[in-house]
């Protein structure tokens, strides 16, 4: 066991997870997450009990009918795709790949079995904030037919769901009282931890509770920690604008929370440079034929226009059809602690502030995560000195306001959404003795593109021809060619871009026109968002369409408008002295634009509309130094743009292998992302009647100058064996869906030259699969990224103070957890992190699945499945400790996070406690070792 850091007597040694959902199986009408946390067998922390076989199309047994299955067949794959994972048939009854569960990116199956919690406890977890969650829109969707006509938001829905989940957590604590206990005060928590137990703090993360809801839950269950705002705008204030899905959910329940009681009111946004622009045209709920299912469709153009989310002047009015330029700003929720725009504008809103003051008066632990920027700022200002918490967030604008020495490094490399806590707000929180939980979500790593191919589609596979490939350059096999995106140097100055395409174009009578859309990054800081957008119509004659996009001056930082639909362009005085360069080109896309009617300003068409078959396309960068091809694409045909497939991206900045200079990427771990055509049917996954097609992928590598594929899968082989990896795990791959998975390569990064795709076990007669984009990128070790990020936050937000940054895993939170580890846990590094007060230390062994027989079950390894189950936190901490440079500091700081959290709680109860604590150590947190 690793010796505790000498931080002084009576200091709790163990880490805190500030956010997890052990009772998620009770949320969403007990219909969303499959698998129980409770297993009747003996508890062995080194053996993960399997979950029952997942029925796939339903997560409710006994089944309630085909409508239930029809809804499940739509909802579960869509939810799973949040983490780029298919909804795979998992469970214990054989005939299915065990690698599908557990997995860090599997958000609809249980991640926190009690045995798993026990293993995390053996690994040093001493304080867990056990939280409830729900969303009544998703719950209603899963609960039966005719959702659209029958849904009426209920004021107590979240409260009732919270009660069910809290009852389950209380039962868990009761059943495992030997090592678990619920703490209703920091003193109780300390006593539990001193007794060698895991202290649970009950927490509620609900979209909206009635006015007396928090008090009721404290009275009946002893809840201590609250999220005043979650995923929707509620009566207290505005949520972070970060998810189109939850914009729709916010609208669905708006009648409950707005002071004007209006329904279907979407978020009110204002312009900013501080965050990007994640919210596009909102969606609304519609019936699907037969009229028992719910579907999503775009809001009418008029509604979209009124929301003022973006300048739509390009498609508006008599000038439609000409070149347009506007500045694209980021989005943030206009709402702080107010109930609607009128409330906010009047500045007289008091309900949100009053309810928060009540929470402070009752010494609640109040969480800023999920709040809009304004709501978080106003909350911080309400009770200066009161310790708050941000339990599961990253930090936006890390280096703003940070001391200049040591130089601040922000590894995020791009502006983060409003969902992440602003660094100055984070510093204010820490100054008031609050604590932060660093999220461990999916996709938190830097990538370096290696092979990128796009088309509409780039590959078409069918049961009679189930295999295909893409590769860079020429080589054996009939592979689609992936272009070279790095032909023009990043530093090349630009005057204009020339776009030319060849192919047959048919307007089909629609009021539409082909455009090229160029998006450029303006002269703003790396963590700011301000893009110049140029929309230029293509002039088509014969089979050639072309346009020259004059880029003009490079805009400096502009004042973002409150109304995002304002057309803002820099005047001469606002130009920077530099020109746009190739490095500033974010995106070049050719697309249809519908100029009128229901689909106005949309690139796609639902009905028969224009059809554009592109054989090839070229973008040429032209500047003072001459002309260079930016990208040349040739597919013959390259794309057929029709119906829902109305746009083709020719170039993106992140397509370039030199887009992430200096990133700590070893070149041995790759991520492959594939996007299916929206016009197709995708791939049917498993059901009781079929195993489900298995989509296998493998890297192509250059050997002796030739790009070669892997050894082909044998005829009749339906599993992804050898060098092949399963992308879908036999789950459904929806049309227009993006899935990704990881692959390893033992050689150099430059040897990777393409990707093979092969669909196995495909039923004859199945619809063909179109794949519109394939991206293979070398990826930074996600665990290493988290360690470095922790160190950055500890240094630049907490001034190196240990313990202030805890974990905020959000296990079972439908987000996914750390995708994978590049490295295995070093031999002999898997050790218990804490000595228990009782007789013995549980022997630690690599985690395995429990089987019913004598043979050992499959290993559950973080380097294969990511942070797939709560028990792998033990492995995670061991990996952290082994990280070169800053690993020990990060691990020691984690081990003091329970102590720091308890101190924060004690100060919330009694401000006089501040100053009674010996300061926690300060660490250097220097991760100078780079990639291991």
């Amino acid at each position: 066991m690793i010796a505790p850091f000498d931080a002084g007597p009576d200091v709790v040694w163990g880490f805190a997870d500030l956010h997890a959902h052990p009772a998620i199986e009770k949320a969403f009408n007990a219909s969303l997450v499959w698998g129980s946390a409770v297993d009747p067998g003996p508890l062995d922390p080194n053996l993960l009990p399997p979950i029952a076989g997942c029925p796939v199309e339903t997560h409710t047994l006994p089944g309630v009918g085909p409508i239930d299955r029809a809804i499940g067949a739509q909802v579960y794959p869509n939810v799973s795709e949040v983490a780029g994972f298919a909804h795979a048939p998992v469970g214990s009854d054989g005939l299915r790949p065990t690698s599908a569960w557990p997995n860090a990116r599997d958000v609809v199956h249980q991640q926190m079995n009690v045995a798993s919690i026990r293993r995390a406890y053996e690994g040093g977890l001493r304080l867990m904030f056990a939280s409830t969650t729900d969303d009544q829109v998703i719950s209603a969707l899963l609960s039966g037919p005719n959702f659209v006509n029958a849904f009426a938001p209920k004021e107590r829905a979240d409260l009732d769901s919270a009660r069910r989940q809290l009852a389950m957590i209380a039962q868990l604590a009761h059943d495992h009282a030997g090592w678990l206990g619920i703490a209703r005060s920091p003193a109780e928590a300390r006593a539990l931890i001193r007794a060698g137990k895991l202290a649970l703090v009950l927490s509620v993360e609900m979209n909206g509770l009635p006015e007396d809801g928090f008090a009721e839950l404290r009275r009946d269950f002893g809840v201590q920690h609250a999220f005043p705002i979650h995923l929707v705008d509620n009566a207290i204030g505005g949520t972070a604008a970060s998810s189109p899905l939850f914009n729709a959910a916010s609208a669905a329940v708006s009648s409950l929370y707005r002071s004007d009681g209006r329904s279907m009111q979407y978020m009110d946004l204002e312009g900013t440079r501080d965050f990007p622009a994640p919210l596009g045209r909102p969606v609304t709920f519609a019936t699907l034929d037969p009229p028992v299912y719910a579907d999503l469709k775009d809001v009418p153009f008029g509604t979209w226009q009124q929301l003022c989310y973006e300048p739509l002047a390009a498609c508006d009015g008599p000038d439609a059809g000409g070149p347009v330029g506007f500045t694209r700003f980021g989005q943030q929720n206009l709402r702080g602690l107010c109930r609607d725009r009128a409330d906010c504008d009047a500045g007289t809103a008091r309900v949100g502030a009053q309810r928060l003051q009540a929470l402070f008066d009752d010494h609640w632990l109040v969480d800023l995560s999920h709040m809009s920027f304004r709501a978080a700022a106003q909350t911080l200002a309400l009770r200066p000195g009161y310790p708050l918490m941000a339990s599961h967030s990253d930090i936006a604008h890390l280096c703003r306001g940070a001391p200049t020495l040591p130089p601040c490094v922000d590894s995020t490399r791009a502006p983060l959404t409003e969902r992440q806590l602003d660094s100055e707000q984070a510093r204010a929180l820490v100054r008031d003795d609050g604590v932060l939980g660093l999220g461990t979500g999916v996709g938190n790593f830097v990538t370096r593109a290696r092979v990128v191919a796009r088309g509409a589609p780039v590959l078409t596979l069918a049961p009679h021809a189930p295999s295909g490939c893409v590769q860079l350059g020429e080589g054996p096999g009939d592979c689609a060619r992936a272009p070279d995106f790095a032909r023009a140097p990043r530093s090349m100055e630009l005057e204009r871009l020339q776009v030319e395409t060849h192919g047959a174009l048919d307007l089909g009578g629609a009021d539409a026109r082909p455009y090229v859309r160029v998006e450029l990054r303006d002269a703003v800081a790396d963590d700011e968002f301000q893009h110049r957008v140029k929309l230029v119509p293509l002039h088509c004659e014969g089979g050639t369409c072309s346009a020259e996009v004059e880029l003009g001056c490079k805009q400096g930082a502009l004042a973002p408008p409150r109304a995002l639909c304002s057309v803002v362009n820099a005047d001469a005085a606002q130009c920077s002295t530099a020109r746009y360069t190739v490095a500033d080109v974010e995106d070049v896309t050719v697309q249809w634009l519908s100029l009128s009617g229901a689909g106005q300003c949309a690139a796609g068409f639902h009905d028969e509309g224009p059809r554009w078959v592109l054989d090839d396309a070229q973008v040429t960068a032209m500047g003072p130094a001459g002309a260079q091809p930016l990208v040349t694409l040739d597919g013959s045909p390259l794309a057929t743009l029709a119906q829902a497939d109305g746009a083709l991206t020719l170039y993106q900045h992140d397509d370039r292998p030199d887009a992430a200079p200096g990133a700590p990427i070893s070149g041995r771990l790759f991520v492959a992302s594939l996007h299916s055509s929206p016009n197709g049917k995708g791939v049917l996954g498993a059901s009781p009647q079929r195993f489900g097609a298995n989509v296998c992928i493998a890297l192509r590598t250059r050997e002796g100058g030739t790009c070669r594929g892997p050894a082909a899968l044998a005829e009749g082989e339906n599993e992804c064996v050898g060098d092949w990896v399963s992308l879908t795990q036999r789950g459904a791959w929806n049309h227009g869906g993006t899935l990704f998975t990881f692959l390893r390569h033992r050689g150099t990064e430059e040897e990777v030259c393409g990707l093979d795709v092969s669909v196995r076990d495909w039923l004859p007669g199945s619809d063909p699969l179109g794949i519109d984009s394939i991206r293979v990128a070398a990826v930074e070790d996600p665990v290493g990224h988290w360690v470095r990020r922790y160190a950055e936050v500890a240094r630049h937000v907490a001034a190196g103070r240990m313990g202030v940054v805890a974990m905020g895993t959000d296990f079972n939170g439908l987000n996914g957890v750390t995708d994978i580890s590049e490295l295995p846990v070093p031999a002999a590094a898997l050790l218990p992190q804490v000595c228990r007060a009782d007789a013995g230390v549980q022997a630690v062994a690599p985690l395995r699945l429990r089987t019913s027989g004598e043979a050992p079950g499959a290993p559950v390894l973080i380097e294969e499945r990511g942070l797939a189950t709560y028990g792998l936190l033990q492995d995670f901490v061991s990996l952290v400790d082994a990280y070169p440079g800053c690993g020990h500091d990060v691990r020691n700081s984690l081990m003091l996070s329970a102590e720091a959290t308890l101190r924060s709680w004690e100060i919330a109860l009694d401000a006089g406690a501040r100053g009674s604590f010996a300061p926690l150590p300060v660490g250097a947190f220097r991760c100078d070792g780079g990639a291991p």
Partner: protein
Amino acid sequence: MSGLLLLLAVVAAEPPPAPTQASSFDEKVLSDADQREAEMLGYLDGVGFLGRENEATVEVAYGSKQIATTRLELAHAFPISGKLLHVVARVGAGMATDFHALGLHGFTAALGLRHITGKGHFFVEVGARFLGGWQGIHGDRPEAQTLALGATLTSGAADDARWLPLRSSGLQLYVDFLSRSKPMGYDHSGFFVAGFHYGGQATVVPPAVSTWLGSEPQFVGNVFIEAFLSFATRQGTPVRLTTGAHVDLSLSSIWPSNVPFPVVLDLFFEWHPAWVSWLSLRAFGGLAVSLGAFGDKIGQGGLRLVATF
């Protein structure tokens, strides 16, 4: 036409006798005319009528999914002395094959209470049906589910409890009604009756359906309705021909979202030979489809032989 039949059946059907001091279930002495009617049309009333206490049913079917089904069911009616009531016990088993995945499925045993009115215009049988836990050969593979759905659609009755591979037993409650008119027509031309036969079953103890994904407790049930015309005599000669339409809808929750609610729509032609009064032969055929997959309808047909003695 169906509306006319419905009207005729409603108008012409003789309701059960109004309760008097004696129960409506008490046996009564029929008049000669009523007795002749009962004997002329008793072939419609099945086991328990006119002292016929045994019934054996054999049926075979085949459809365009190239699935064949066969089923055997035996029944015995135990009379309750002095009552127009019988306790009926039934056992049955079936076999379905797609000529690749043979499955022996559908062991069922039922116990019910059957009441037939004195003249046989109406019967009702209610009871419980036990579904034997038998998953058959390859019951834990997708082919078994495909075969079960195909057998349901092919067999002429959307009673998927007969065909599903079951890992554990279940219990259904069932109800079966027949309601027919009094004879219509004339001595010189002939007599006929019109009527409806309808009912269904539903699980009260869900069986665990065997799938490759694991055992899934599921609701298993179906409802059916038949409308028929039966020609008893023609010009004084017994004819005993019945024709009609049968609609059968499965409500079972096991079927996936792309093929929900299997439904069978059949026409049938039934002959009850006068010279073998205890025999009935039905030929049926029609279409079967899942309501969510109209493009994938199948044609099916078969024969059912019922001996009631």
